[in-house]
């Protein structure tokens, strides 16, 4: 008998981390038209900060906190030095952030070497779910991801900051005329997006191989999630992340990683062909 529950839970935890990564990408793309090719590397830096924190003997939670803060600060630096000069020039942002991603990757190779690092899970316990036992840390990862996703949605849907941010997305000129500082909102949103990537990297570090190539493994499915879900409403990321992450994770277990990749790309092509605005049919402004 095929064990159904563990692969489903694995898929769910992958989906949630993927949504965290994709949310950061989407905030940056939706608000500023910046396609951040370095987002996967920010996720990677988050994981490496965790590696360093653990080697210094710091508690896991402190590592998560540091990852968020340091990657957020790195985001601030990137915004101030690079991104703010190329807002709304979508094609240029791809080139500039791609260059940045190479620099970050090579920087990590220089410091840590090309080999994989490992982060020890802070909780080695397992919980028994009927006949199966399942790692407790994975369950906590899911809880933490849900909390972060919820917090991000609350921030963008229920606060002053979020309302002004959505106004800036829809009509930057009008928003500025109403006295909204669009530049400062861009910067803060960019930092929120990168912080999410950093935290996601730290949280997932105990479950995967931490190496200089890890970013790409999340960047591409992250982009596909936005594509499939639709780049308008934030909720599109949930649908897209579930579709892309679920297909990828489950087919990897049930058939093969290659089949999973093929299925995800076929799905993306079908969605682009049949629902060009994504599953939730988002649109950007008017």
């Amino acid at each position, binding site marked *: 008998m095929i064990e159904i529950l563990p692969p489903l839970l694995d898929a769910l935890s992958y989906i949630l981390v993927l949504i965290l990564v994709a949310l950061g990408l989407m905030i940056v793309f939706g608000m500023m038209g910046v396609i951040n090719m370095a987002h996967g590397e920010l996720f990677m830096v988050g994981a490496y900060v965790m590696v360093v924190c653990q080697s210094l003997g710091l508690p896991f939670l402190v590592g998560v906190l540091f990852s968020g803060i340091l990657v957020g600060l790195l985001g601030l630096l990137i915004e101030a030095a690079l991104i703010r000069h190329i807002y709304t020039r979508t094609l240029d942002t791809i080139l500039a952030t791609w260059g940045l991603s190479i620099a970050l990757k090579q920087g990590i190779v220089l410091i840590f070497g090309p080999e994989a690092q490992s982060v020890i899970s802070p909780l080695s316990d397992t919980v028994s779910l009927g006949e199966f036992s399942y790692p407790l840390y994975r369950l906590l990862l899911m809880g933490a991801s849900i909390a972060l996703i919820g917090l991000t949605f609350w921030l963008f849907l229920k606060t002053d900051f979020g*309302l*002004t941010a959505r106004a800036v997305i*829809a009509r930057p*000129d009008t928003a500025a005329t109403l*006295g909204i500082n669009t530049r400062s*909102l861009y910067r803060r949103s960019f930092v929120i997006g990168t912080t999410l990537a950093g935290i996601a990297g730290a949280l997932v570090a105990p479950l995967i191989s931490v190496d200089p190539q890890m970013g790409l493994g999340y960047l591409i499915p992250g982009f596909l999630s936005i594509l499939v879900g639709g780049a308008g409403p934030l909720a599109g990321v949930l649908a897209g992340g579930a579709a892309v992450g679920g297909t990828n994770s489950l087919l990897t277990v049930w058939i093969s990683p290659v089949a999973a990749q093929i299925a995800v790309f076929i799905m993306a092509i079908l969605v682009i062909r049949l629902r060009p605005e994504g599953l939730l049919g988002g649109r950007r402004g008017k």
Partner: protein
Amino acid sequence: MMPFLQITDLDKTFGGLRAVDDFHMSLDAGSLTAIVGPNGCGKSTLFNLITGALTPDRGTILFKGRDITGLPPHKIARLGIGRKFQVPAVFGELSVRENLALPAMKGRITSIRNDTNNARTTAILDQVLLTDKADWKAEHLSHGEKQWLEIGMLLAQAPELILLDEPTAGMTAAETAATAALIRQINQTGGITVLVIEHDIRFIEQLECPLLVMAKGQILKSGNFQSIRQDEQVQELYFGRTEAPHA
């Protein structure tokens, strides 16, 4: 007394076109003034220069004696200058209430309820006759209602000067009359200085205010509705000459 808004020597060129050309104007506090002029005469460019959406090539704009030339748009807005765009620029995805709350927001991480449900928003909803539709998404409003919502958003900024770019474009005659009455009320009871750009001659007449005629980036004439309407030069500008132009 220092003029409320004083514009001197203002120039703005796009490529070879002088959209605003050695422009001078001053407005008194509490005045209501309309600028008329043919398409391309530089009216909208003038607004863009005042609000900071464009930076002038030359000249100064003084608002209450303070030089605001070249400040970023959000700073000019916060000094008390509101602007309504020609095309309704309401936020369709947001509710009417949220649209009205926006100008007061500073992007803090606090619940939006504080701004969307307060007395101020309620009063403005009442003034622009949208109380019944406060929780509608703005995209579902009629064209006229969107224009009014935008005027409401201006009021929510608590401005001292408002710039209205064709506020009645696309409105029915009844809506136009109601809008003229609203603008007069904002000016007279609210004490807000108003500068309007408009094409619609009925609306201009209903505003009962001094007119400035703009052509080729400059003020050509000023006066009241009757005198401007009968001015030959203005008629020529709008309708063209009937006889052959002299070389």
